[in-house]
């Protein structure tokens, strides 16, 4: 897992963290509101352009990698094996309705995952924490999320070390399914017990560092929330509301 990057250049770095989050959420909601069949596909294209402009273009390639198996299964399940009238495409006989449904869903996946990964690559945990602290949001939720983000790489390293350590002790984890299943306990148990053994001391330290005190936390270096940021967020909200009205009143399901 590559870490989210505060080093992303361009607009992504300069924008307020909540603007990036709002954009990703707006794309997610719009993916289900824009009129099919072309709406989701156009939205996917727009997401790609947006992340490229914002300097997190690697989200496009990563999005394709994540989406590819989903697209293949959509094509198989709905295009090739879907019901209703069929059309021939070369050697293939495709379900017309199924193919369209697959394209719509593929566009949704593409749009949402590209926008999400764009935010991921633009995400700076420190800026995010300071931004929510500046807004007076309760600290605990953002603390849990960012603390998890920080804890995960070291924990994954421990998992890797656990696998290596057990392997040098003779644990076999290649072979039949049963042999591999039996390997789960000696690999997983040390991780679980080690984590639980740390909880007390971590909890004591957090307690003495006033994490559970409540009240307003001072933001250390809050990012600027510019007029442009606020305009973008309000515009996104308006866009989502318009799409919702359009969907409820006139657009096909």
């Amino acid at each position, binding site marked *: 897992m590559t870490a989210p990057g505060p080093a992303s250049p361009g607009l992504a770095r300069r924008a307020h963290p909540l603007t990036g989050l709002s954009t990703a959420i707006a794309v997610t909601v719009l993916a289900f509101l824009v009129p099919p069949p072309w709406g989701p596909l156009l939205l996917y294209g727009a997401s790609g352009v947006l992340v490229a402009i914002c300097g997190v273009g690697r989200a496009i390639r990563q999005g394709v990698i994540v989406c590819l198996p989903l697209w293949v299964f959509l094509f198989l399940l709905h295009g090739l094996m879907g019901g209703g009238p069929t059309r021939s495409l070369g050697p293939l006989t495709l379900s017309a309705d199924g193919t369209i*449904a697959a394209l719509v869903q593929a566009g949704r996946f593409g749009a949402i995952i590209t926008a*999400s990964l764009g935010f991921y690559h633009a995400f700076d945990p420190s800026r995010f924490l300071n931004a929510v602290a500046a807004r007076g949001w309760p600290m605990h939720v953002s603390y849990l999320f960012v603390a998890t983000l920080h804890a995960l790489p070291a924990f994954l390293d421990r998992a890797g070390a656990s696998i290596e350590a057990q392997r040098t002790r003779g644990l076999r984890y290649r072979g039949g399914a049963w042999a591999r299943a039996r390997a789960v306990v000696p690999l*997983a148990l040390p991780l679980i017990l080690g984590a639980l053994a*740390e909880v007390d001391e971590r909890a004591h330290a957090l307690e003495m560092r006033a994490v559970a005190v409540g009240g307003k936390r001072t933001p250390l270096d809050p990012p600027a929330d510019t007029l442009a940021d606020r305009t973008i967020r309000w515009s996104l909200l308006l866009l989502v509301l318009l799409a919702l009205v359009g969907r409820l009143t006139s657009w096909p399901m």
Partner: protein
Amino acid sequence: MSSRLLALIPLAVAINVAIGRIVAELSLPVYLDAVGTILVSALAGLGAGIATGLISQVFAAFVSGYVWLAFAPIQVLIALLAYFAARQGGFRNFGASIVWGCLLGVAGGALSAFISYLAFKGVTAGGVTFLTTVLVGAGIDLPWAVALSSLVTDVIDKALTFALVGVALRSLPVRMISRYPLALRALGR
């Protein structure tokens, strides 16, 4: 939220991810990515379990796409059933863990199938969707194929997860487990 939960929950989420990776490394057809959620529900109660599950789902969505937030209700269900199992001594031995895991697998599989069909047209992650595709190819209608594949994979997955959490709880030293009164009840003590 107490300091203990602020220390425990990030580690539990990390356990979810790390054990999911171990299982992937072992090329096993299960996920085991709710070990931390079930563990916290059994140790610290329903609220902490739900928080762990939701943070895990948010994290998964954060790194792979917000589309996966649709499965957030599954996390609540996992925490709820794990908490209920703990109150009933559901981790007191291997057999009890498997039974409760199967129950969660049935409930979770049903809800998972519903969300998968409604929001994703039956296409979600590799293993389950592969099974769905095989079943559709064998002539089963899509909704039933989604339901069947979700149920089968979830029952196996959650039974194994409960078994693993039970082993972990029974391995904890007395001094550590006595900090969590619910865990003592989960072990039938």
